[in-house]
């Protein structure tokens, strides 16, 4: 029970840290906080700046500012983007759906592909083909995601002309969206699969030496049945936690892929915000991504407790 409390405390602390970081960035970073809060490239006169300063409460003590900030958060008020002339929450809501679709589909595919292949590769004896696949996945995992995206874009969209190279859709029908998403999803799937593959492979290699695997064979299970019925379940336990920690990384990978394929999701939003120094959008994006990762981790913890009987041992 104390473990649960400890975990909850840690999540609460993480949440608090994320929120505080977000609060502190514009106020502690070099430069005028007003500029930091509205974005650098917005040109406003001195008087408007002072008005804004008062309006945002930047003259108040930090404590009051913080409570006001928390209040804003609770009302889903993430500030106002002067570049896009709309509230940040609004902008994010528009973009995040696409990114979640994109990340969700590719992570799902990548996880399935990566874990299955990884398990199989770890289970089967070492052959040339096996080793080759293994090195292939190591190479993939060592490639910066956007470089992979660039290569795919170049080869399949520009050179071969098989796929479009821009945007989520021309006309919003499912077929068209799938056609547009194919390349970016492939890139992200490979990226996510490469990480899962390596983890799963190592995990299975470790597990296959365990006695229960031998015992399963002694019970009369076929080779692959041992892998899928006995070894996989044990080997995927560590994957759950690692996968959750990887969500942040995959999310970032997705951002880069979006930029390369000019998909109108969070990635391009962040890219434009960096170029335009649109700080409110950056902060909002960070907050949303960080909270998503936090949620993923909590989910993983819950899942782990369900999947591993050792955790829920009765007293």
């Amino acid at each position, binding site marked *: 029970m104390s473990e649960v409390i400890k975990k909850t405390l840690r999540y609460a602390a*993480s949440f608090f840290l994320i929120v505080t970081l977000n609060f502190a960035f514009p106020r502690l970073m070099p430069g005028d906080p007003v500029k*930091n809060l509205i974005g650098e490239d917005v040109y406003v006169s001195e008087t408007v700046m002072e008005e804004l300063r008062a309006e945002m409460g930047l003259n108040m003590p930090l404590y009051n500012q913080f409570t006001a900030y928390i209040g804003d958060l609770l009302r889903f008020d993430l500030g106002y983007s002067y570049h896009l002339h709309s509230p940040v929450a609004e902008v994010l809501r528009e973009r995040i759906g696409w990114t979640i679709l994109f990340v969700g589909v590719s992570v799902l595919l990548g996880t399935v592909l990566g874990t299955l292949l990884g398990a199989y590769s770890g289970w089967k004896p070492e052959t040339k083909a096996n080793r080759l696949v293994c090195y292939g996945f190591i190479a993939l995992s060592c490639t910066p995601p956007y470089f992979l995206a660039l290569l795919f874009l170049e080869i399949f969209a520009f050179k071969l002309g098989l796929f479009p190279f821009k945007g989520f859709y021309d006309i919003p029908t499912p077929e068209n969206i799938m056609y547009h998403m194919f390349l970016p999803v492939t890139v992200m799937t490979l990226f996510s699969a490469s990480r899962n593959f390596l983890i799963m492979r190592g995990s299975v290699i470790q597990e296959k030496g365990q006695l229960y695997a031998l015992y399963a064979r002694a019970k009369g299970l076929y080779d692959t049945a041992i892998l899928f019925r006995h070894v996989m379940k044990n080997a995927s336990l560590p994957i759950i936690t690692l996968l959750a920690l990887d969500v*942040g990384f995959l999310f970032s990978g997705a951002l880069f892929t979006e930029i390369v394929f000019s998909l109108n999701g969070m990635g391009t939003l962040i*890219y434009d915000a960096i170029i335009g120094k649109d700080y409110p959008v950056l902060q909002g994006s960070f907050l949303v991504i960080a909270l998503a990762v936090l949620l993923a981790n909590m989910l993983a913890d819950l899942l782990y407790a369900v999947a591993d009987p050792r955790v829920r041992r009765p007293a």
Partner: protein
Amino acid sequence: MMQEEAYIRERPRKWKDFLAHNLNLDIRKYKRNLKKLNRGGLFLFTFFLILALFPSLFAPYSPTERFIPYEAPSTAHLLGTNDIGNDILSELVYGARISLMVGFASASISTLIGLMIGLFSGYFRGTPDELLMGFTDVVLIIPKIPLIIILGAFLHPSIWILILVLGLLSWESIARVVRSKTLQIRETGYVKSARCMGFSSFHIMVSDIFPNLIHVLLPKFMLATASAMISEASLSFLGLGDISMKSWGIMLSFAFSRGGFIRDMWWWYLPPGICITLCVMFIALMGFGFEGREKENGKRGVDSE
């Protein structure tokens, strides 16, 4: 005894066995093939290292020297020139230094922080351990790249800030590993006897525990270097790198944003990307190799008990 002998016997083959232990591949049968690959990998990494240390020996021109822009590869410029007329090959050679430096420097910072936190919490246990590991878990959850992006956007980073930020944000996994290893080591006979003899905690940590952590730290350091290099390249791609220090990531980013990609100048964007990938891969492979060795040693240790 047995272990010592095995160790001595293995010692001369150390370098050859790098990949042999990599990822726990059951390689015995294929050792010969792997040795080839392994030597190749190490050779290439050394090559990158030499490039980084003595770029002037290999680069045909200075990276800032200007020629006609957007030139295709020729005998004068093996990889052509970029948008402002710099020789791309020279840029690539000089970029090795910066990319590797970012990687190694930030990995050093994170290894150092991870080592200290892990060592403290593993050695003192109890409340400091709870607090430090709690803190580590809390930090671990915060997604790194978005955080670095936002920091980068506010700070307009020079390469030093970039190194510092990357180093400060990636020590958690090192701290965890060091902690668990320290917990093991502190229960061993020599540490206990050192404690009984009244040596100070600091002395024990430095002279008894630290030397035994090197095996764990080395692979982690390598992997941290690899991931820092990828992070640097990614940030550069977003325009958050240090433009005055042209790393491979910056080259790639310029090739993308300044027309190399649209004009189909593969000799501009392909080489830096391939260099990053290969270099990161070799470093990671070396890291995996050390990790595999560590596991193997660990297993043997258990068996001999």
